[in-house]
């Protein structure tokens, strides 16, 4: 017994819909609303409404935890259009109850009128529930499949094909079987039989109330059969191709990944080998590009200063020997060298001094030291040479 006014309950749901929605999502994900989760949700929305939720019978305790009552769960599911995919076995149960009721209606057609009317109402209820279940399932399956196709969750392609196969095997194919009018055991086929029966009875039954009940059932079935046909078309034209396409895509990707592992070992698809004779090389593009590229970046120019001119001096032995011989006897050979080099060159270097020293080894000259062991200094470009004072005379004659 609920003490609150119906309007108060609906107002409560309207007012605290965000809380109710969170409770619905929690139950959809976890199967139950744990007491800690309930506290977190209420705290998040800053609403202390636990007692009303229980009082209005929106949630009910399950041990220490809670769950949404079925009627509210279905209401929220419906207004959010977020349906749990039903297993075909759950849908098929409607088929069984519809068949059973239809059998009893046929058997009791001449029996008690009241029970006949009750059975007609009951079968209508089952048909409506069946139709609703199919529609909800199609909506959910379509949403799941589209998400899978768009890879919303960015799952691996192998997982994608596993999921696609799962939806086909357990949901889509069985649902298709339930809706397939060409299948003698399908519920859709059974509904067509009932529709035909109801059509006959609405026209030729003595009791007007029963005739009207059959008429209602007939119109309901006409509408239901249209709805089921539409759902069947969604399955045939959209869901199955969508799933098949996911399968195909994955097969292609599997092939490409295999190919990319080592594309040079797989024989690619055959194409024509064209025999075109061109007056230019097939590599003309890259060659030309390479040729021009070498001019696109001018090399950095480096200006190097010219090294200072170095006097190129050649020792002319004959020339110096002649001059030396003319001066003989010489009292100080290195003084003569110094004077000669000063006169004839720009600069006195060690090299020039040593070159002139070579004249001392000429056979027609006699070289001796001065008695006083005197020395002479020669200043060259790089050194100060301290050399002995050497006397040079002509060999034998002087």
């Amino acid at each position, binding site marked *: 017994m609920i003490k609150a006014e119906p309007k108060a309950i609906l107002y409560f749901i309207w007012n605290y819909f965000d809380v109710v929605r969170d409770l619905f999502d929690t139950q959809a994900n976890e199967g139950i609303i744990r007491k800690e989760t309930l506290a977190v949700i209420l705290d998040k929305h800053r609403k202390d409404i636990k007692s009303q939720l229980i009082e209005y019978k929106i949630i009910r305790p399950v041990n220490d935890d809670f769950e949404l009552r079925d009627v509210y769960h279905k209401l929220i599911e419906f207004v959010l259009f977020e349906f749990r995919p039903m297993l075909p076995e759950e849908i098929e149960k409607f088929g069984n109850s519809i068949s059973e009721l239809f059998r009893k209606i046929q058997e009791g057609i001449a029996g008690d009128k009241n029970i006949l009317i009750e059975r007609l109402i009951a079968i209508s209820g089952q048909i409506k529930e069946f139709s609703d279940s199919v529609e909800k399932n199609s909506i959910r399956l379509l949403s799941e499949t589209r998400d899978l196709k768009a890879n919303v969750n960015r799952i691996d392609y192998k997982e994608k094909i596993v999921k696609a196969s799962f939806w086909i095997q357990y949901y889509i194919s069985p649902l298709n079987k339930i809706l397939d009018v060409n299948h003698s055991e399908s519920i859709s086929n059974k509904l067509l039989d009932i529709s035909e029966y109801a059509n006959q009875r609405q026209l030729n039954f003595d009791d007007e109330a029963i005739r009207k009940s059959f008429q209602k059932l007939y119109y309901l079935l006409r509408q239901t059969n249209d709805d089921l046909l539409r759902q069947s078309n969604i399955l045939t034209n959209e869901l199955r191709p969508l799933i098949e396409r996911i399968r195909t895509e994955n097969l*292609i990707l599997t092939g490409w990944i295999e190919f990319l592992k080592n594309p040079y070992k797989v024989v690619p698809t055959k194409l024509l080998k064209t025999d075109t004779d061109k007056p230019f090389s097939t590599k003309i593009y890259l060659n030309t590009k390479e040729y021009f590229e070498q001019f696109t970046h001018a090399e950095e120019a480096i200006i190097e200063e010219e090294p200072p001119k170095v006097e190129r001096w050649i020792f002319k032995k004959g020339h110096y020997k002649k001059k030396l011989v003319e001066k003989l006897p010489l009292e100080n050979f290195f003084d003569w060298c110094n004077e000669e080099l000063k006169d004839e060159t720009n600069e006195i270097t060690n090299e020039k001094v040593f070159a002139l020293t070579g004249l001392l080894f000429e056979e027609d000259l006699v070289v001796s030291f001065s008695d006083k062991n005197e020395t002479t200094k020669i200043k060259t470009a790089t050194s100060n040479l301290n050399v002995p004072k050497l006397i040079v005379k002509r060999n034998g004659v002087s």
Partner: protein
Amino acid sequence: MEYPEKHRQIVEELMNGRFILSRENHFDELKQHEQDFYVPFFQNSFGHKLIITQEYAYLVSEETDENISRDISIFFAIFCYEMDKQGKNFLDGLQYSEHSFEEVNLLFETSSFIDLIQTNKQIKDADARRKLLFNTMNKKNIIDKINEDKFTFTPAYKVFIDFAEELGKTRTTGNNIVTTEE
């Protein structure tokens, strides 16, 4: 002897390795004379096999152009793989979408197959990819070049996708893949 109309255009294009598409006028002519003329014509004259589907026609030869086929296959493989990785529907992309070269280029720049890309001359950088796409594939009628940046794929892409699908089937059935000799 009377040749079919547009015979010269048909032969020239097919012999240049071009795909003739069903939307082109001369495809109808080719299709109309498929069995009575063109199949034996190409077989007897050049030893080439003429393949005609509902959407395109092309020639294959015994001595096949493996390099171009492989380069284009690598292009499609990376394109499909990277599109899928981004959560995009690559089959729809191939069939219906207009593509920008820059976007496609980005797929290659950020691809995890970068080693393979860098070692293949036809796709190693943006210039090479542009040439493969706008030159080679355009000439073969595998893409429609809209402008310097935009293009769409023609139904000829299916030749390469079918190849991948066959490879995928071989892979999933556990058979060995045909490989070239070492």
